[in-house]
């Protein structure tokens, strides 16, 4: 099993990747690459869905107020 995966990896390394990496770079087989990508995006999506902390709204509200003050002067 280990040998199979190793061969697969070696074969993948002989091809040019879709992102143009050199043929001599070792490269992940597409299945492994997809699993890594899926996990990365799942972790990231969870972070993206966290509510925006109030401090950032407050900061940008402050910007609005300052902007209006500037214009009224």
């Amino acid at each position, binding site marked *: 099993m280990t040998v199979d995966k190793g061969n697969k990896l070696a074969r993948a390394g002989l091809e040019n990747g879709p*992102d143009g990496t050199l043929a001599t770079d070792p490269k992940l*087989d597409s299945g492994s690459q997809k699993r*890594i990508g899926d996990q990365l995006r799942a*972790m990231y999506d*969870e*972070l993206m869905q*966290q509510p925006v902390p109030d401090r950032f709204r407050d900061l940008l509200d402050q910007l*609005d107020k300052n902007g209006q003050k500037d214009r009224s002067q």
Partner: protein
Amino acid sequence: MTSEPEPELREALLAAVPSLRAFAISLSGQVDRADDLVQDTLLRALSNLHRFEPGTNLNAWLFTILRNLFHSEYRKRRREVEDPDGSYAGRLKVQPEQGSHLDFEDFRSALAQLPSDQREALLLVGASGFSYEEAANICGCAIGTVKSRVNRARLRLASVLNVTDIDDLGPDSMTRAALQG
């Protein structure tokens, strides 16, 4: 009569916050520090608005600012902290109280083991949705360098996470044992 770019700008900046936070948290491994980075990024962006070219990608510009702030702060801290990379792995175990985070703990630990230039490249291209060219602009390096870093990051993650077998990158069981210790 008065032109009001602010409400629009406010919305655009606010809309960028979730992706900036996700990037900053993944980059630094620390939510508090990430939020400080995002706040500094917004302040820096506001005081440099005249340098933003309208019509270009606001998100890419903000990411560039955040990334540069992160690295200048990192260099500063490096002089103060003895083992910044080692402590990063520990810090990444934040928020274990929420069950959903446990699903990603292995992944976060693996991410923490990457050199920061590889982690950054992978996050920009693999998660934040930037092209290789945009990522190269953000990092101030060549496109080929970004491609190579992303590729090495994927190989390393696959090895650490046992997604595939790459024996020459180190014994996974020992790495895992060390991480869990």
